[in-house]
């Protein structure tokens, strides 16, 4: 059975969303119910949207959300962001400029050529394909490779399906990894040039642990880059944005994906995510150097790009 507080929170969230008379279709009624809670209160608590849940449960609850949205993921993103998420992702990749335009100096070993990119929470491959395209077409670099890592096998399956359409299918430039970003024993220390996590880190149970893990796997001089929803700095835009995200997005979720609860979770998790400055402090705490201001606001701060560089020594 679900814990009463989770149930109350979800029911409350559903009611706030508007006057929908259809019976509430809880995304997690079946899935989260499987997460047997053993009624012990000793585990640490964390956020799941506006609800507090035990840390041990969050992972599977988030997993349930993304399993249920995997197939309609792109359509929903288009509807919710009015297509702007594509511009953000293009800008993100362009600003990182993946791929070496100049020939490598220690040239002959192919492992040293190109960049080794790790795309965390990149299940559907949105960012990975963009980065490979950029490396190939802009920088004429055919050695840069991307590992798509996701904790959720359903999202990874979606990415694998889409990769068939790309020229990188079944090449050494693209690989998939099912792993928890907080602990990736299969990725060796100091092995990654660029670590990206796009619209994923807010779902992590322990964000600081994930940042520390990123620091571990990156080569010295490697870059941590993260795009995530953030805090809007303009009061008027913020009011509009809040209205949109709390009224419209769950409704769109219900109409398009037939899943209100997942999208209710989505907007609540955005609300819970730390502000630009707080998150920058977390990146700094993990040991990264912060270039310049450390973040770049997109569309008035609805999303923000954070970067950190691992120091040499």
């Amino acid at each position, binding site marked *: 059975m679900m814990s009463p507080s989770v149930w109350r929170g979800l029911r409350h969230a559903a009611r706030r969303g508007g006057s929908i008379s259809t019976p509430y279709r809880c995304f997690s009624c079946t899935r989260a119910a499987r997460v047997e809670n053993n009624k012990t209160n000793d585990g640490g608590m964390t956020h799941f949207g506006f609800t507090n849940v035990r840390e041990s449960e969050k992972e599977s609850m988030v997993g349930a959300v993304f399993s249920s949205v995997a197939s309609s993921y792109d359509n929903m993103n288009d509807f919710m962001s009015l297509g702007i998420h594509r511009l953000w992702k293009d800008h993100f990749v362009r600003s990182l400029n993946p791929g070496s335009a100049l020939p490598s100096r220690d040239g002959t070993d192919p492992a040293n050529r190109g960049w080794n990119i790790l795309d965390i929470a990149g299940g559907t491959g949105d960012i990975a394909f963009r980065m490979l395209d950029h490396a190939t077409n802009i920088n004429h670099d055919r050695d840069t490779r991307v590992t798509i890592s996701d904790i959720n096998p359903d999202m990874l399956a979606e990415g694998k399906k889409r990769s068939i359409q790309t020229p990188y299918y079944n090449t050494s430039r693209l690989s998939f990894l099912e792993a928890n970003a907080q602990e990736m024993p299969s990725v060796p220390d100091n092995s990654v040039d660029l670590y990206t996590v796009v619209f994923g880190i807010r779902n992590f149970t322990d964000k600081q642990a994930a940042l520390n893990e990123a620091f571990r796997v990156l080569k010295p001089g490697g870059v941590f880059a993260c795009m995530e929803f953030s805090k809007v700095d303009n009061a008027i835009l913020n009011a509009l944005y809040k209205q949109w995200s709390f009224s419209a997005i769950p409704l769109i979720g219900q109409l398009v994906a037939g899943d209100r609860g997942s999208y209710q979770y989505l907007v609540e998790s955005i609300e819970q995510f730390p502000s630009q400055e707080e998150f920058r402090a977390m990146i700094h705490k993990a040991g990264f*150097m912060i270039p310049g201001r450390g973040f770049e606001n997109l569309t008035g701060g609805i999303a923000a790009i954070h970067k950190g560089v691992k120091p040499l020594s």
Partner: protein
Amino acid sequence: MAPSTILAARRPLLTSIASVSRPSRTTLRPITQSPRLYHCQHTRPSTPTTKTTTPSIPRRKYHSTHQPTPDHEYTNSQTTILTAALRHVPQLGFTRDALTLGARDAGFLDVSVQLLPRGEFDLILFWLASRRGLLRAAVDNGLFRKNGPRELSVEQKTKMLIMERLRMNADVRNQWQDALALMSLPSHVPLSLSELHALSDDILALAGDTSVDASWYTKRLAVSAVYASAEVVLTRDSSPDLAATEAFVERRFEDTQALGDKVGGVKECLGFMGSTALGLGRSWGLKI
């Protein structure tokens, strides 16, 4: 990484420029001028180590806490990359490729150029700021004493300094048009202008200009205009030892002189006319 090293890395510090000692400057200067190295110490009181690590920088006697920290100061890693990248500028220009090679030279990865959020423009700003530092060093090393012990006028010194600064651009003059184009992008204009102002300000301060009235502004404007136009001339100058550019600067200074004379003449004329009118009115019995 230990927290103290992080602090040291994050602290804005133009190491290469900071290492160039500052000329002793007795003139009081308005606070709008910002010796760009110093006020980060004042606006960031949370870095108590500043004093111990940079003892060579004298504290300013006065400062404005309202001034924001200038946003083109670099950490040690950034300075390392930029310094290494400058060596590739004569061949590759102020480009991302130069930055990438600089990063490789400094032991970083290709991706590490992300340390410089403005990319190529950071390279240009670094070039400008570091050349400004070298100009001060040149004065310290006796630029003005080259032509014997004779004391030069402020104008002669200004001219010498402008030419000295232009000569530093000689190596990159084939790349400089690209740099000027980048600097004139709308988003880059404010920083480029502030850098130009800093240069003209430095030139006049080093030349020993002590004006505190409105001419403080006009002089800086004049030096900025002469320098900026001479820079463009330099990009197409193929004469030996930049003779064409030097002649150009000479002519611009004469123009400034002539313009100043004309403005003075007009002012004098207006003054005479005014006092004549006043006297005329009084002679007619007006109570003026």
